[in-house]
């Protein structure tokens, strides 16, 4: 296993550090700039969900992020101890904004759609200990340098 692990407090103030860490790892793997931007948004969305839906009662609530280079590219796992039902349901409903009048637009719900649109694989694993979002972005070797 050559995973790189990062643990942050489950608070919005620390999500930029996840992006900085991801940027370093993806740069080293020679990802194209646009792919790195895609991953930054997708991983932030997973962390946003972990912050918003994480369990509030637990003291020392944290998010564990694991960056794992794999054959196809980079897999990023975002795990927290929050409840999962919200995420599972949201994954099935994820969609961009509908073509309706402005007044009919709903605020929110775009995060999971963005994860799906920006990554090659999105998986949600749930267990008693929490929710894990697994994101994979393929590394196109030919496009590298």
């Amino acid at each position, binding site marked *: 296993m050559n995973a790189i692990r990062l643990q942050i407090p489950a608070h*919005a*103030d620390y*999500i*930029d550090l996840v*992006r*900085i860490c991801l*940027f*370093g790892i993806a740069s080293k793997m020679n990802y194209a700039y*646009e792919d790195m*931007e895609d991953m*930054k*948004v997708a991983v*932030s*969305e997973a962390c*946003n969900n972990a*912050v*918003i839906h994480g369990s509030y009662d637990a003291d020392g609530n944290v998010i564990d992020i694991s960056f794992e280079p794999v054959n196809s590219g980079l897999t990023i796992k975002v795990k927290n101890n929050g409840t999962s039902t919200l995420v599972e349901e949201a994954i099935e409903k994820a969609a*961009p*904004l*509908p*073509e309706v009048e*402005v*007044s009919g*637009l*709903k*605020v*929110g719900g*775009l*995060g999971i*759609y*963005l994860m799906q*649109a*920006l990554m090659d694989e999105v998986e949600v694993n749930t267990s008693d200990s929490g929710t894990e979002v697994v994101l994979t972005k393929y590394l196109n070797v030919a496009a590298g340098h």
Partner: protein
Amino acid sequence: MKAEQFQVVQEETLDQFILHVSGELDLSVVPQLRTALEPVMNRTDKALILNLKQLKYIDSTGIGIIVSVLKLRDELKAPFFVREIPAAVKRLFDLTGISRYLTEGTEAQA
């Protein structure tokens, strides 16, 4: 990669409130953006403009705020423009479908 601090600078002209948004707009700065929007988003006497030229990052939380401003300004029948959208931000606007609701309104800039 340099994490640039999020900042909102307000500019007021005769007929416009222009909010220049810079840095990274993520979940952590949502309260800051809301505070900046609060005094101007209900003003129907002037157009509201978000200038995103210096915006380095946005995700669904920022896009959600823009959707809520769109809805409010639509309800008030007051003008709202989003200007100078960087390419990376525009890509996310296109993906989420918010682009079709946004007006650049550059002709009103002069």
